[in-house]
C-alpha cells in the first residue's frame, strides 16, 4: 500500500503536469488539449491492454463512435457539452459492450484480428452513411454552448485546455481508485492466469466484457471531448492506424500502469510535434526507432525505466 501523501500527490499529478505544460507552451493550448484528450484515450486502452491483458488494434472504434455521437448530438439534439460527453461515453460503451459479447470468446490472434475487423466495419459504415456522418468530408457545422453555461469555447483553445484537463483528471483519479478495488484486482488476476480465476469461481468472460465496456465508455468520452473541442469529426478517428498509434503511445510509456499511459502520450505527442516540424515526411521513422529501443531494452516502457532509476537511487529493488 502506498502511503497517504504519495497517494494525494499522485492524484494531483495531472493538474500539476497540466500547469507546468501550460507554463512551457502558453500559446499552444489547443495542442495541450489534444494531449489531454489523447491521454484519456490511452488510459482507456491501458485498461484493456495493460490491466486485462488483451492486445487490441481496434480501440479507435470506440473513440470514433463517441466522437460521431457527440457531434451528431450537438448538431441535432442539444449543443450542451456535458450531456454531449455522456452521449459520447454511452456510444463508446454500447459499441464496446455489443462487440465484447463476441470478442471475449476469442483469444490471442483471433481476438486481435476481430478487433481490426470490427473497427473496419464501423469505418465503412460511417464512410458510406454520408447523409448522416458527412462521409469523407467529416462531420462539422455544430457549435457548442458554454460549459456549465459559463465558459465559452474560444478560437485559441483556452477553454478546450481546461475542460480536457479537468476530464482527464477525473478519469485518472477514478481509474486509480478502480485498480485497487476487488473488481480491479480480479481483472489483473484474470490477466495473470484466467484459468486459475475460473477455478476459484470467477467469471472470466463476464469480467472481460465489463472491463471492455467500461474502457469503451472512456474511449467514447475522449472522442466526445475531441469532437466538442475541435468541432470537426473525421473518419481517421475510427481508423486502425489511429488504434495502432495509441498502442505505440501506451507501449512507449509502459502498459499496466496508469502512469505509463500519461507519460507515453506526452512523450509521443511532443516528439511528434517537434519531429514533424523538422521533417514532416519521415518523423515516424524517429518514433519507430525509439519504440524498437524501448521494446528491446526496456520492455516495461519509460515508466519502468523511471521505476528502475528510482529504485537504484533509493537502494531498493524495483517492484
Amino acid at each position, binding site marked *: 500500500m502506498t502511503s497517504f501523501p504519495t497517494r494525494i500527490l499522485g492524484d494531483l499529478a495531472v493538474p500539476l503536469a497540466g500547469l507546468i505544460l501550460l507554463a512551457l507552451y502558453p500559446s499552444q493550448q489547443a495542442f495541450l488539449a489534444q494531449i489531454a484528450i489523447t491521454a484519456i484515450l490511452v488510459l482507456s486502452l491501458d485498461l484493456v491492454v495493460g490491466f486485462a491483458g488483451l492486445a487490441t488494434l481496434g480501440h479507435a472504434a470506440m473513440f470514433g463512435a463517441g466522437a460521431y455521437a457527440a457531434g451528431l448530438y450537438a448538431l441535432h439534439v442539444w449543443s450542451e457539452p456535458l450531456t454531449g460527453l455522456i452521449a459520447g461515453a454511452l456510444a463508446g460503451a454500447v459499441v464496446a459492450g455489443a462487440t465484447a459479447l463476441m470478442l471475449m470468446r476469442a483469444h490471442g490472434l483471433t481476438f486481435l484480428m476481430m478487433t481490426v475487423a470490427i473497427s473496419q466495419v464501423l469505418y465503412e459504415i460511417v464512410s458510406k452513411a454520408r447523409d448522416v456522418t458527412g462521409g469523407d468530408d467529416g462531420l462539422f457545422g455544430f457549435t457548442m454552448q458554454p460549459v456549465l453555461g459559463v465558459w465559452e469555447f474560444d478560437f485559441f483553445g483556452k477553454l478546450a485546455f481546461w475542460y480536457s484537463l479537468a476530464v482527464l483528471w477525473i478519469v485518472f483519479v477514478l481509474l486509480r*481508485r*478502480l485498480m*485497487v*478495488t*476487488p*473488481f*480491479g*484486482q*480480479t481483472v*489483473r*488476476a484474470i*490477466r*495473470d*492466469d484466467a*484459468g*486459475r*480465476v*475460473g*477455478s*476459484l*469461481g*470467477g*467469471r*472470466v468472460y463476464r*469480467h472481460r466484457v*465489463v472491463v471492455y465496456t467500461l474502457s469503451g465508455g472512456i474511449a467514447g468520452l475522449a472522442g466526445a471531448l475531441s469532437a466538442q473541442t475541435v468541432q470537426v469529426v473525421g473518419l481517421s478517428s475510427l481508423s486502425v492506424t489511429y488504434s495502432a498509434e495509441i498502442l505505440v503511445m501506451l507501449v512507449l510509456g509502459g502498459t*499496466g500502469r496508469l502512469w505509463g499511459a500519461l507519460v507515453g502520450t506526452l512523450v509521443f505527442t511532443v516528439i511528434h510535434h517537434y519531429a514533424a516540424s523538422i521533417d514532416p515526411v519521415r518523423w515516424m521513422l524517429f518514433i519507430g526507432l525509439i519504440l524498437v529501443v524501448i521494446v528491446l531494452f526496456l520492455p516495461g516502457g519509460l515508466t519502468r525505466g523511471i521505476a528502475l532509476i528510482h529504485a537504484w537511487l533509493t537502494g531498493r529493488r524495483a*517492484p
Partner: protein
Amino acid sequence: MTALLEVRNLTKSFGGLKVTNHVDLTLEPGARMALIGPNGAGKTTLVNLITGALAASGGSVRLMGEDVSALPEPVRAARGLIRTFQVTRLFGSMTVAENLRIGAIHRQRRSYAILRRTAVEQALDEAVARVLAQLRLTDRADTPVARLAYGEQRLVELGIALVMEPRVLLLDEPAAGVPQSESHIIMDAIDDLPEDLGVVFIEHDMDLVFRFATEIVVLVSGAVICTGTPSEIAANEEVRRVYFGEAAH
C-alpha cells in the same frame, strides 16, 4: 448423511482412448482420500473432470447430494469444490497477500465491487491474514510471489485454495517439488483443515500417503483398480504388483 462428493461412472475419452474409465468415488465428510497410481494413470484428468475444467464424456458428479455434472467450473467452485494445481499457478504480478486476496474476493463474492468499502476491505484482509498465519507466511505478505522459493510458492498455491474455505478440496501433488524439510508445513496445513471437510490428494510420496490418508484409491490406466484403508491397500496383492512393484524399480 449425504456424501460430500459422489462420482459415478465418470468417463472421458479422447478419440478411442479412454483416459478415465467408469470411475466411482465417494468422499465422506472428514475423509482424507489419497489418489495414487503410476504416471499417466489419469489422476490429474480425474481432478479436471470433477472440477469441470474438462467436460466428461459420461457419468455424473454430485456435490453434497446435488448433481453438478452440467455446471461449469466456476459454478462448481463457488459451491465449494476447490482444487490446487500440480504446477504452481499463481498470479505472477502480485504479492503473496494479493494472491490470497483474489481467493478471498471470490469467496466473499466481491469480484464486481467497484468501490473500496471499509467493511468489505476488513473482511478480505481478515481472511487473508488468517491463511497467512496458518501457513506461516505472514512475514512474506508483501513479497512478490515471483521472488519466493518454490517451496513457498507451493504454500501460496495451497493458501489460495484455503482462503476459499472449500467443502471439498482437491490437491494435485501439493508437496511436489518442495524440499523434504518444508513438506511438513504443507502437510501440517492439510492436517489442520476443518474436520468436516473432504480432501482428495494426489501424491507420489508413499510416506505422506500412509501418514495422512484415511482412504486410498488406486488408479491405473484411467480405472480404479482398488479402494481401501491404508492397511488394506498395503496388503493388496494386485496393488503391490502394478503399483509398488513398479515404483520400487
